[in-house]
């Protein structure tokens, strides 16, 4: 049985990569992590095809938890989820949590074999929203 995968989506590729590095260092290789940041020209922004590729890159039947920074990252991630094949769509969630702390907590939870709902819940318990 594989663990829930983590995707980090930031407007900044540096933030996304740095957050993914922190997850890997703190949680190790029990969890697959992908990151994406930047618009299609490489400037600050987010990019639907790159988000789809990141989701596919960590995809397993256990599902995928996505962490986003600001508005467009969330909207583009929602769009990316809708463009996935239908049977994958319900197994990919966006977590309403701070991008770095949320991803680390979620990955910790996922590394113990928790299911997607439990991973999302653990991350969102961090969030005051």
């Amino acid at each position: 049985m594989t663990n829930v995968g983590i995707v980090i989506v930031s407007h900044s590729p540096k933030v996304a990569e740095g957050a993914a590095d922190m997850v890997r260092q703190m949680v190790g290789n029990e969890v697959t992590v992908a990151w994406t940041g930047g618009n299609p020209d490489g400037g600050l922004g987010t990019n639907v095809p790159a988000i789809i590729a990141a989701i596919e890159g960590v995809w397993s039947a256990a599902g995928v938890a996505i962490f986003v920074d600001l508005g467009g990252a969330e909207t583009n991630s929602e769009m990316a989820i809708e463009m996935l094949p239908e049977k994958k769509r319900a197994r990919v969630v966006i977590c309403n949590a701070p991008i770095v702390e949320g991803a680390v907590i979620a990955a910790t939870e996922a590394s113990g074999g928790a299911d997607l709902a439990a991973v999302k819940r653990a991350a969102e318990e961090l969030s005051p929203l």
Partner: protein
Amino acid sequence: MGFDREFNRRLIVATAETVIAHADELSELDRTIGDGDHGLNMKRGFEAVLADLDGLASKPLPDLLKAIGTHLVMKVGGASGPLYGTLFLTLGKELPPEPTLDDATRAFGAAVTAVKARGKSDVGQKTMLDVLVPLTAALEKGGNGLLPRLKETAATAAAQTVPMKALRGRASFLGDRSIGHLDPGARSASLMIATICDVLGAAR
């Protein structure tokens, strides 16, 4: 009205060129209350549309609109990509190849509802919806001289975002400081609507 290849070309080129010509203005509006990339993002999206002009223009109207929506989703890189992308994708899904005014009114209403859902927003929050929703109402009302009236409705509605306080998007972080500025998404929506009305009007 016949949506033949020549007419489709005119419609696509005029819309794309309007957006591209106003890219600096849109980014400047966005710099004031957002993150300053709206014009650049929309320009990137519509350059992708223009690059596919021959392929797009030969498609039936519903497929053409869906393909434009997909280009915007894939290329824009900001929230406006999925928002405008959803508008065009839904229009493409809802319109028949040779739409009547009733078809267009119904499809536009459905597309605006989809944009509301995509942006988790509604009228009065200082967004493109403050142009799209009044336009839906004007379409539903119909009547003589509809095209100039739609254009006027869009321009007036965009201007009415100036005194609004932003409640969605990056501008909402500014709170009261967003008051007094034209919303860039409302502006881009009204620019596109004006161009489309002009091209449709000239074809009559």
